[in-house]
């Protein structure tokens, strides 16, 4: 069903809150996709609905366009975050092909993404109406507070796949994550940001992981916590890392659950 709204953001928030709360109270997951786009009309919404149904016949959704704020909302019945994320890829493909997309797409699924409170939902809408940076990427909304000692993490690895994966997963859990691709960059970022935790590979260009830990120890007597995430499997490497003050040692290939568990253990 396509509905047009011409009210202020506050009404969009209220509408979202009503819908999400209703679903969550009934024990169902509720997926939300918000996209900043222009010039949508009933015809476009109908064709969008057909397009989405073609790709995902089982999809049950409400399409709402707030033309005052130029925000398209899609509310997905019983749709978890993973499914919502995939649906947003289909939506983006449609919007970009028709040149409707004007800003980023933000997705969430409640209760997975946090409590369906009016505060969280207004934050979610704010991510689209007042984005921190202008881009057309798909962003995932999460309740940002970790409530833990470790809040900021620096991930140091030459492998882009690992860096990106770890960053995304930890950001989803509310950590502020930054990346560095070598020891020198890591040291610079460490000086600038003083992260609570560093996750580093040992095999790094310019400054290797050992030298990095050594430099950090010299700079900060309290020594920032370091978890080594490395390809090096030999016990000699492990011993050397622990001697230099590593708090934990994980070998690749690794599991993100294990990594997050180790971070939580450091927090304990």
């Amino acid at each position, binding site marked *: 069903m396509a509905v047009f709204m011409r009210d202020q953001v506050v009404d969009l928030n209220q509408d979202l809150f009503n819908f999400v709360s209703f679903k969550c109270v009934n024990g169902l997951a509720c997926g939300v996709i918000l996209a900043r786009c222009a010039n949508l009309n009933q015809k476009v919404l109908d064709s969008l609905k057909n397009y989405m149904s073609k790709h995902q016949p089982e999809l049950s959704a409400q399409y709402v366009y707030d033309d005052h704020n130029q925000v398209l909302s899609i509310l997905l019945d019983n749709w978890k975050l*993973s499914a919502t994320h995939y649906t947003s890829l289909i939506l983006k493909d449609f919007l970009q092909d028709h040149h409707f997309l004007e800003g980023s797409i933000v997705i969430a699924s409640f209760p997975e993404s946090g409590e369906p409170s009016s505060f969280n939902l207004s934050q979610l809408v704010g991510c689209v109406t007042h984005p921190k940076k202008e881009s057309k990427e798909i962003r995932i909304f999460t309740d940002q507070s970790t409530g833990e000692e470790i809040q900021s993490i620096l991930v140091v690895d030459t492998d882009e796949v690992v860096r*990106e994966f770890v960053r995304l997963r930890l950001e989803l859990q509310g950590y502020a994550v930054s990346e560095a691709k070598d020891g020198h960059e890591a040291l610079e970022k460490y000086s600038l940001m003083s992260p609570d935790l560093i996750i580093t590979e040992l095999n790094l260009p310019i400054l290797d992981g050992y030298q990095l830990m050594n430099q950090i120890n010299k700079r900060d007597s309290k020594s920032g916590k370091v978890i080594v995430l490395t390809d090096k499997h030999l016990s000699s490497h492990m011993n050397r890392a622990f001697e230099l003050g590593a708090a934990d040692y994980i070998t690749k290939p690794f599991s993100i659950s294990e990594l997050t568990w180790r971070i939580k253990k450091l927090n304990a």
Partner: protein
Amino acid sequence: MFTNLNLAIYFLYILALVNVVLIAAIYIIKMRNIKKQKIIDYFQQRFQDYLTYLHVNLEGKERLHVPPFKMNRVEQVALQERLNEMIDSFTGGASQKLLDLCEDLGFVHYHLDRLQSRSYRNKVDAAYHLGCMRVKEAVPALLQFLETHKYNSTLFVIARSISRCARDELDVRAMVSILMMHKKEFSDLLADIIKEATVDHAALFGEYLQANDPALVRLGLAGVKEYHDPKVSSVVYGLLDAQDTEIQRLAVRIYLKSAHFLPRNVVNKLIRHERVEIRLLTIQALTEWKHHTYLNEMKEALMDPDRRVMYASAVGLMELGQEGVVVLCGSALEMKGAGRGEAIQGIIEDEIKNLSTKLHDVEHLARYNAILYTYEKTFDENKRIYRIV
């Protein structure tokens, strides 16, 4: 008339031609790299959201979906490369979800078909990718390919793929026996390849250690050499008396590395071994452990006919602290006059001299004082050789 000048001119022509060819080759390589980079950049841009989707949803029960848009062949190749990297980086459920995705994308079927291709290049490429995707049903064809392949580096690409795809230990054993037919020395590489298989490596290497074929025994030793498990020492113990000197050397090395304590009879046996290499390895291991238990054995090694063993033993005794230094100085005094005593005394003096340059470090200072005290006491030196500053 043909003159030296003509020869020089021809030579210059040839040089110029070679230069042009090389520049053209470099230009082609550069252009290829630029093209490849462009494809990667385009891929990054178009697929960024999809890759984020993969990263975010790698763990969890839901199956990963294929991209909701059509891909051309170049994009499929780029995605395949990215998935290969991801499969190697993650374990367990995440890795399995990526393998399932490869199947859903049709990559598995595509490369299984290519493995039957008549083009050698396609077959090798398919073998590599099937290995990356751990396609178990590819093993029989890969084994067949391995069997008919000549001995070169590509042989190990196929072997690694078989190991990654192996359904059980039988597949790994079949791969090993085919490679062994080449009768070349590549134990370390093969052990590394076997470790890629999802089988009980320790059991497999243990089995090879019991084999009659020395090549398999070497493979077993290469496989267990990084293990620090006391069980390994009991497995390699039987090889300490091996006829093959290389096997014996490796076995002793692994035995000494994996054991945390050695029975005295074994130490005596190794320290009196006819091969100097074995005696040296034993002394080095005892030095590393710093056990006072072996003080007498190390003292005995000071009389070893080989100077390297004697030197290693002297160093080892100094590492044992005051007790070791007392024994060392005493032995040097006892053997004085026979040349050996003077040699040992020289080693002690060298160590004192060496430590005297590092007295800013408290640890070195304490060690310096301990050695010097015992040295002066034993050799009745009235004045200090080096003064602490």
